[in-house]
């Protein structure tokens, strides 16, 4: 089974995180777990990658962080919330992806080169 090259997916980690924050704030581990589940175990984001994405997103004003207690066991965690700028950025990324996919798709043979 082929695995995802981290070079390729790096540009879309931000998109995935913003997608997951779209409806409600979330925290580090929950996001990494949901990425794994949604990708059907095909992509597992490393902790360092995730943290570096968080700091970058926050620096650019796309997310905000705040400390809060977990609903389930009351543990203090850092939560992230998407901002209006973040939503705007997400829309741009989606458009960019559609275009990218369209272009790259043209160079993928139907038979996969078999």
């Amino acid at each position, binding site marked *: 089974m082929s695995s995802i090259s981290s070079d390729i997916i790096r540009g879309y980690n931000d998109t995935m995180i913003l997608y997951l924050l779209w409806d409600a704030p979330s925290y580090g581990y929950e996001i990494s777990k949901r990425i794994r589940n949604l990708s059907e175990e095909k992509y597992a984001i490393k902790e360092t990658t995730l943290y570096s994405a968080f700091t970058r997103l926050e620096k650019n004003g796309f997310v905000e962080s705040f400390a809060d207690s977990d609903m389930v066991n009351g543990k203090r965690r*850092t939560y992230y919330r998407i901002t209006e700028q973040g939503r705007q950025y997400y829309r741009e990324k989606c458009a960019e992806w559609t275009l990218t996919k369209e272009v790259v798709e043209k160079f993928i043979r139907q038979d996969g080169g078999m």
Partner: protein
Amino acid sequence: METIRNYLETMFASLPNTFEVQKAKNELLQMMEDKYTELIKDGKTENEAVGIVISEFGNLDELAEELGISSFVIQENQKTTGGYRNVTLAEVKDYLHDRTRSAYAVALGVFLCIISVCGYLVYFRGGWHVRIVLATSFMFIAIAAAVGLFIFAGFVMGKWKFFRERACSVDFATAEYVHNRRESFRVTRSMMITIGVILCILSVLPVIVVGSLFGWSIGFGVVLMFVFVGIGVFLLVAAENVNAGFTTILSLNKRGTVGGSFVPSQKQVTYRNDTISKVMSVYWLTVTCIYLCWSFLSFDWHITWIVWVIAALVQQMLKAL
């Protein structure tokens, strides 16, 4: 969980101890902790869970830019190839063992030096020159034994010279181990110092007591005085030397880094003025010398202690300069 924490601390040990780095460390620990808890809940064994968490952790290089430490990461990588010596826990245990042995050897040597003159003060039967011969032999034997002990101590410690000559570091678990050892030695150390100081202060007592009880043999009182001072100094030297061993290890890591959290925080007094800092390096030695000279010459022990009070005041004043 302890393994994960140690792993993370070790990864971060050589990074600068800044707010961003601490925050990153805490966040990463939080994520790893969550993941670990969930894996355990899913029925994984502790070892499996630790293995998975650590293997999926990633690489700190990725964070370099965000943490503003890219120059640091590169620097550190160069240093490791340039012979940054990592001292293992086994080596540290060895070192502390040797250091303790040599501490007691040096202390015993000092004790022997102090009591070496006692032979001249003891009264025993025999002719005048027999006494001189015996006293002198005792002195030389004591000094020879002391020198032997000093050489032995130097020999034992010779193996560890590289601590000073090369850049060394210890990992977090080792630093914590040494820190705990030092903490548990703290009570012993303060006992040794207290008793040592008390013995030094009380050392004049035998002279007075013996002198007033048996006027004829004041020599015996002086012998006791030397023995008191000897034991007192033995305790002080041993306590400080053993403690210095812990401090040496803990100071290997640079203070500004995360791994340097255990670097003894006692403030190193720095003098702004160069001349004063030179004077201060021999200050307490000079004060001790003045105290002893004045005391022994005048025998005004009841008043000579004032030297220490004045010395402390003068030091405070010099610090302000």
